[in-house]
């Protein structure tokens, strides 16, 4: 979707404010939001692409106003309700529905340690023929899906070169909508800065964007 989250190249966002001695979590609740999201993901009612898309669905003005963890929190509430793990009534009252059965937590401390150590790989060990090879000239498709995509607007329609084939990965555009993993090759595509931004950019510079096969066409 052409949301405000797709920020690459926008103007007017102001100077970067780097805090020299920043805490990992500025407030206790931020850590709780991160941990709750991780723990509830263990129920496998959604996937990482669903979580990203839900944040993108936060309306633009609100997206810009909220801090990172606030956005994560409001998106999390939506996922809980949509997945049915928690009803909207329960979210409003803060109390379990009367007579509802008590579950057994999906994530134990032992499993949390394994999750952190092993992660959740997005690569898939399936034979898929790559459509492109290193050195191929490619054009990023000029597409504007209303759903989730990881093809940033600034690269659409631009010509780059395949720099590396990363292998086969889950395709977010379908996975974010529970439409299957559609595994396909992901490439590192090199775009000359001037191809993206015109003559104001340095002739030497470039931007590397990781792109799925379905984002590309021969150029």
């Amino acid at each position, binding site marked *: 979707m052409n949301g405000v989250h797709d920020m*690459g*190249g926008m103007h007017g*966002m*102001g*100077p*970067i*404010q780097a*805090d*020299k001695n*920043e805490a*990992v979590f500025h407030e*206790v*609740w931020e850590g*709780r939001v*991160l*941990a*709750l999201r991780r*723990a*509830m993901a263990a129920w496998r009612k959604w996937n990482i692409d669903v979580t*990203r898309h839900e944040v993108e669905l936060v309306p633009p003005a*609100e997206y810009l*106003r909220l*801090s990172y963890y*606030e956005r994560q*929190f*409001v998106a999390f*509430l*939506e996922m809980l309700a949509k997945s049915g793990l*928690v009803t*909207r009534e329960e*979210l*409003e009252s*803060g*109390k*379990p529905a009367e007579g*509802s059965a*008590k579950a*057994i*937590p*999906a994530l*134990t*401390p032992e499993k*949390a340690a394994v*999750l952190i*150590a*092993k*992660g959740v790989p997005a*690569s898939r060990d399936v034979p898929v023929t790559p459509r492109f090879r290193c050195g191929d000239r490619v054009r990023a498709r000029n597409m504007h899906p209303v759903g989730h995509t*990881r093809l*940033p607007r600034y690269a659409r329609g631009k010509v780059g070169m395949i720099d590396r084939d990363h292998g086969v*990965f889950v395709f977010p555009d379908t996975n974010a909508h529970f439409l299957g993993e559609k595994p396909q090759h*992901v490439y590192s595509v090199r775009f000359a800065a001037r191809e993206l931004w015109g003559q104001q950019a340095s002739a*030497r*510079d*470039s*931007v*590397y*964007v*990781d792109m*799925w096969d379905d984002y590309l066409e021969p150029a």
Partner: protein
Amino acid sequence: MTTRRDFLAGAVSAAGAAVTPNVPHGHDPQHEHEHQAVPSDVALRVKALESLLVEKGLVERPALDALIDSYEHKIGPRNGARVVARAWADPAYKQRLLSDANAAIAELGFGGQQGEHMRVVENTAQVHNVVVCTLCSCYPWPVLGLPPVWYKSAPYRSRVVIDPRGVLREFGLEVPEETEVRVWDSTAELRYLVLPERPAGTEHLSEEQLAALVTRDTMIGVAKVSPAQKDAAA
């Protein structure tokens, strides 16, 4: 959309807390920071949600505490600094790191969530690399920990792809005109770590001493390693 602004408001009221309406705040030029607009009830709403999820048996608090403890105390840029120092000290390791980052990083015992697919890019006299995620906040957690606020902020995400040299200048780093700048936008599940240049005059240092010079910002690519780096936290 839904009534999610009201979610947990009842629970917060029931807890006897004052509920402040979650309305947009005015623009305050003094705090042009993503962090400015914290609704005063968010901490209470998170607490109410946690209680609800515990009561429903969906989560248990020791698991939450374990996750938080890991990211607060165990996983952070010191991990990445050890990887960099090893690469500086051991040319064969550096080759492995550049060709198969996952395996090389795992040699030092690091890896896992949000670092499942690592790639290391090397800074040289000719090339300067800098990493961003313009679409969200992708970042190599096992080697750098959780990202700082500025990395997740609109100014960095919007500007570093279109004006990398200007952004680096804001961080105090002037990249010579003849040096090529490569910006890595983490749009897929690859996570990038910059291998900074080893500063001159560090030949006598041990691997441990080298690691102490390597800061988080040098591994994102917004700073260079200084031989006299004091502030190892940044």
